[in-house]
């Protein structure tokens, strides 16, 4: 069964690529925006070293920003769940922070955090922490009242309640936000590179776009897609392995 699904998945991707090649060749001229997939794959092969270097740099930025954002989001969500006052005071500020598009303060990020990997990490962090905060908070608060009362009646401490009941209950929601967050982290790292850098997938996108090197543009887009899908896949595997209970609890 699993083998058949896999075969179907591979088949679907292959069919899409064939369709892409046919459409690009059939409809596009030399000035078309969509190059045939063969031209894109040739570019990938010819520039694999540059691409690999870009993937590694963007991956580093994404993972660091994601880790920081996930940790902060979890702590903030947990703190808000414990203290409603804190939630009332600080959550609105976090909401406001998310309404400002990050591209609007690119110059500020550079002025504050410089040109190194830190500024990209900060943008990835900025996009990641909010969904994790909200889902952690909602998850921790959604525990059935009766279960809490039951455990209290057996003399469970707040600490014990958190680790044994609230957290396991919240974990599926938290995992869902991490899956969302890792994609946002990648977007953050890519956008962060637009504010001055020479290595990374984000800057390669800008270079290709500016020079209208369309096969390159698509080979970088493909690399971004593979990177994003890979990160998502790893987290989804972690979820299946460690948070297998879903919302059934």
């Amino acid at each position, binding site marked *: 069964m699993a083998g058949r699904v896999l075969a179907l998945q591979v088949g679907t991707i292959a069919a899409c690529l064939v369709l892409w090649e046919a459409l690009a060749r059939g409809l596009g001229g*030399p*000035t078309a*925006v969509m190059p045939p997939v063969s031209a894109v794959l040739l570019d990938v092969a010819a*520039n694999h*070293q*540059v691409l690999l*270097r*870009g993937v590694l740099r963007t991956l580093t930025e994404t993972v660091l920003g994601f880790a920081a954002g996930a940790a902060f989001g979890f702590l903030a969500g947990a703190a808000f769940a414990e203290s409603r006052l804190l939630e009332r005071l600080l959550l609105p500020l976090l909401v406001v922070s998310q309404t400002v598009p990050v*591209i*609007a303060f*690119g*110059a500020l990020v*550079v*002025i504050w955090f410089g*040109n190194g990997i830190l500024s990209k990490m900060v943008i990835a962090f900025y996009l990641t922490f909010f969904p994790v905060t909200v889902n952690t908070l909602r998850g921790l608060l959604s525990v059935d009242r009766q279960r809490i009362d039951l455990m209290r009646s057996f003399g469970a401490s707040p600490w014990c309640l958190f680790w044994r009941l609230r957290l396991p209950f919240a974990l599926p929601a938290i995992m869902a936000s991490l899956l969302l967050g890792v994609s946002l982290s990648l977007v953050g790292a890519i956008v962060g*590179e*637009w*504010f*001055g*850098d*020479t*290595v990374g997938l984000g*800057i*390669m996108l*800008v*270079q*290709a*776009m*500016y*020079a*209208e*090197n369309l096969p*390159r543009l698509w080979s970088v887009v493909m690399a971004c897609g593979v990177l994003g899908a890979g990160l998502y896949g790893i987290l989804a595997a972690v979820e299946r392995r460690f948070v297998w209970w879903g919302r059934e609890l």
Partner: protein
Amino acid sequence: MRFTALVTAALVAGAASLAGTASAAEAVSVRLKWVAQAQFAGFYVAKEKGFYAAEGLDVTVNPGGPNLNGETLVASGADQFALAGGIENLLASRGKGLPIVGIAMMLQRTPSAYVAFNDSGIRSPKDFKGKKVSTFFTGAHNTLYAVLSKFDVGAADVTVVPQAVSMAPFIDRQIDVATVMLFNELNVLKTRGVKDFTVFRAEDYGVSFPSDTVIVNEKLIAERPQTVQAFLNGSMRGWKYAAEHQEEAVDIVLKAASGLDRAHQLAMLAEYSKLMVADLGTEKGIGVLDMTKLGAVRQSLVDRKVLDAGVQVGSALAPRFWDAVPTQYKKP
């Protein structure tokens, strides 16, 4: 005896290395107006060939990008120097009170031009009237309006739309006239095999807007003028070398930004050098501040009422640093 000589030698070596640490290179950064490419070859060359080190500087070249403004970053002190926009951008920033000063001008001629397909019936900028024209609103629009005014075409007679990074809207004929940088988009059109279009160069209509100003914060000029001089000496030397050794210069740029296309970068540097080594740039040297031309640009902006008449070219530019750059570093 030999022992004494050895000890002396060791002491001298030690003292020399100490002196070396004491006069360690001063760290400064320069912000480019766009991502790393041959348009900025001179700075990369100066760093790679040790021209900055020879002046006692350790220069970091920071690439620009969308939404990054060299004028703002130099005014805030995040970068000491920048290769900023045209003279019109510098004057506009001065008008807003930013404490930045121009010390050199890389392009002696207007880098922008306009393209229209031959079958569109557009034979001169006069025919832009009633057409859809796209341009960059980062400075090039001022050049466009100046060209149009030469033909008595008002800003209201033309539909001016902001131009995206891509030439696709022009190729797909969604717009009638597009703006091109002679060293970039024009080459892009050629490499993409677009044919049968006419190029209208702003320069041909007497609109000469020098561009790519090297800017610095007023504060740095007041506090460390020798640093400003050192940076300009190294940069001009780097630019002269880049213009005279274009293949090598492009390879140096590619080392910093490996994702670029070599042929495109070579074409860019060739075209960029033509705009740089031109007019007073040929006569006096690369990067010269052509005060007559710059004054004329200011006047045209004031006449069009887009610049406050109080903004003067004299206070926006400090030619004394360029004047002090050794001739062999700048004269082509």
